[in-house]
């Protein structure tokens, strides 16, 4: 009797067929193979580097770069170091990505909603846009914006003049530069106060709605506050803002500030391209909200505006946001195509540094670390967001 129960308790598995032992064997084998390749790669790299007399390590980052950047958010001269060049490039990447994300979202939501329009013509325009833009490589579009559209603008002397303040030419968009005088901090402080006020207002409005059911138009009030308070602050300080206008002198503009054509081309191409993907995400998200929700809202007496705003959009956002975040990440990664038109982003400056110093391993490592941490941060945020937004079911 004990023999029978033993046989049931622990079926006899031979050593070779035991799944545990097999899985350990497979994993040890994989480790050995990966370890072997890693060893080979490191060994070969060290041999090759010593043969080419390339020192490893990150000391080169402190050396003087000796090249200029056509756009930099921080002070950068040719005496600055390679490390500073990479930081300037990274900031440029962040700049073009963040503005690009903003524009792409705006355009993408517009096109996505147009795609759902009842009007056949509006719908067709949106479909035409999506099917054309999505199926043509981004790099080609970038070349078209940079090499065809912006290059065909007139030269600085015949620049398109918009009220003597903005000049659009093939050298870029020249526009007035703001100079902040004494007391301009008051405007900034007022802006901060306005933002804090909006947050408090929103909390109060929500609480009141939860308690009494009365709504308060906090969005409009908030926008008014954010616009009005800084102006008020600056007025109190005696309007310490002056503008430096661009003036045509010789063959180019002096004064003011300029948005370089490389930046414009990259920004427009990225926004237009990503918008076509965002539009499809928005359309799919809105269509995924069941029609019963709209009907239920109508049955409760909500008109079409509040139905969309309060019932459809919040539910659609739950579906839209995860793929939207991955599109934002794609846009950031695609901004590395800047190297093809010479906009000094992280990859382009890194490429220049690489060519000058030959420190291929270190530069590629920096690229990978920067982009990987960007994407891991985003996916971490997305996991948190999904956990928060998940439908709570019984």
């Amino acid at each position, binding site marked *: 009797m004990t023999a029978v129960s033993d046989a049931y308790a622990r079926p006899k598995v031979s050593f070779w067929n035991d799944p545990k032992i097999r899985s350990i064997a497979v994993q040890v084998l994989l480790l050995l193979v990966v370890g072997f390749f890693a060893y080979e790669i490191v060994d070969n790299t060290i041999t090759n580097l010593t043969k080419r007399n390339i020192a490893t390590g990150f000391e080169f980052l402190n050396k003087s770069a000796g090249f200029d950047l056509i756009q930099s958010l921080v002070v950068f001269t040719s005496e600055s170091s390679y490390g500073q060049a990479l930081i300037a490039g990274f900031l440029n990447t962040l700049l073009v990505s963040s503005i690009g994300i903003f524009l792409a979202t705006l355009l993408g939501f517009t096109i996505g909603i147009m795609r759902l329009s009842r009007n056949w013509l509006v719908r067709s325009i949106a479909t035409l846009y999506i099917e054309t833009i999505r199926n043509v490589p981004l790099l080609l579009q970038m070349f078209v914006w940079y090499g065809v559209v912006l290059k065909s603008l007139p030269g600085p002397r015949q620049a398109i003049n918009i009220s003597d303040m903005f000049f659009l030419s093939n050298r870029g968009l020249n526009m007035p530069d703001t100079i902040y005088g004494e007391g301009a901090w008051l405007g900034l402080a007022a802006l901060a106060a306005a933002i804090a006020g909006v947050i408090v207002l929103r909390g109060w409005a929500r609480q009141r709605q939860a308690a009494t059911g009365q709504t308060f138009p906090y969005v409009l009030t908030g926008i008014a506050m954010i616009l009005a308070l800084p102006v008020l602050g600056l007025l109190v300080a005696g309007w310490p803002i002056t503008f430096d206008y661009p003036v045509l002198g010789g063959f180019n503009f002096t004064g003011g500030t300029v948005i370089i054509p490389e930046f414009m081309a990259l920004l427009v191409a990225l926004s237009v391209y990503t918008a076509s993907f965002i539009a499809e995400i928005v359309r799919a998200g809105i269509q995924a909200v069941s029609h019963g929700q709209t009907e239920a809202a109508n049955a409760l007496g909500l008109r079409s505006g509040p139905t969309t705003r309060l019932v459809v959009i919040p539910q659609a956002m739950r579906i839209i946001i995860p793929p939207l975040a991955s599109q934002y990440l794609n846009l950031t990664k695609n901004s590395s195509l800047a190297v093809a038109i010479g906009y000094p982003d992280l990859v382009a400056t890194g490429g220049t540094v690489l060519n000058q110093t030959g420190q291929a391993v270190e530069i590629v490592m920096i*690229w*990978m670390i920067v982009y990987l941490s960007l994407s891991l941060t985003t996916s971490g945020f997305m996991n948190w967001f999904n956990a928060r937004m998940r439908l709570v079911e019984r």
Partner: protein
Amino acid sequence: MGSAPKTSAYLRTEEAPLLPPPISMVGIQGWVLANLFPTIGNGIVSIVAGAFLLWMGWGILDWAIFSAAWSGDNREVCAAEGAGACWPFVQSRFAQWIYGFYPIDQRWRVNICFIIGAAALVPMLMPSMPHKKWNALFLLIAYPLITLILLTGGHFSITPAGFLNAVIILALAATFLPLLAFGIEEGIQSNRFGLGLAGFGILVWLASFVIGSSVWHSGLGSFSPGSIAAAVFIGAGGIFGIIQLRGTGSGAQAWRNWLIGSAVLLGLMLILKFDFGLEPVETSQWGGLLVTLVVAVTGIVASLPLGILLALGRRSNMPIVKTFSVVFIEAWRGVPLITVLFMAAVMLPLFLPEGVNFDKLMRALIGVALFSSAYMAEVIRGGLQAIPRGQYEAAQALGLSYWKMMSLIVLPQALKIVIPGIVNSFISLFKDTTLVSIVGIFDLLQIVTTSSNDAKWASPQTGTTAYFTAALIFWIFCFSMSRYSVFMERRLETGHRR
């Protein structure tokens, strides 16, 4: 109640005749009213949108056809004021855009590759055509071989050491055949001697790595006493393995599979080595659409099997396999393709031992293949996750092994679900091939850009026309792929929805 029911005179006994629907609900008028002018505001929007569409459509038509230059042999026809597209320029350069700098008298080889590819692909894509398995085998094994030989000229230098390595691998496979035929336990018992010899051979082989300074020079790359001794031992093990299989039914089958495998492997090596008398063409002479297609097809073909393996690894219960797959997938997906290409271009040569080198195109291909396999893995993982647990459990209850469960039950269903996703990643891979131009490979986009800067054709319209044509080519490929994915999605809808 025999009598007929009495009906009052005011009750109608016949149905009233059907009235036609109101004129505003049917036909063109009804459609226009419902879709364009449902309200006044909507009508205004329609007029604006219609005007915009007409203006744009007319602009494109006028530029591309009515004011376009159609013939000529230099820039003068295109440089005229108000001229449209510069088609003579495209005509004069079109062959270069397709073939790159491939020698003109050798272009027939590229054409044959295109034709065979199309002829094999079209029946593959039509669901009603039979023999899908053979078709797929041809496309995945024979076709790459044919194109490789035709495009490069074949006659690869495969060293005797290469053949020796192939023979060692085949002998190892023969040693392990009894394990496959009898099962592990019995297989070990029946072939102790052969396994022992092969194991000793492997040890000798490994020892030759340790003694020699580099793997390539001692073990894999050339003859050395160690590798020859190892080959002898492993070969002997293989012979013993084969002897064990005499007479058994499953043994005969294992034998046959081994023979077929050996013949294919050695045959492939011999074909690659064989001199067909084709003029060798360096990959640096390839260009244009040819390179774009080579990069895209290689990426697609390599990414599917690699992606399946990585997806399975990511779903595996083994922690090390899972970690490795996750790290591999996330590392590639987290970085832009252009840094991967830079890495392949500048770092791959550093990773390889002295004397081993790939050409520029090959390096880019490796980068593209690894990159796209990470994306493919995530698409396939989605499909694996969508298969209900019951399918896995049913397969296990039937006693199927892991690989049988995956290949017979799970993967066929999972891959079917993700066909649209797979096609989508093919489309983005096809568009991403343009990035190889940044590392100096003359793909379609690069060659179009270069030729539009030619002084002979310099005119305001040259660049526009060139990019328009290139965009049209890319658009046709991508759009037809996406339409095909929609078609397959509809066809494969087997009614799981309730």
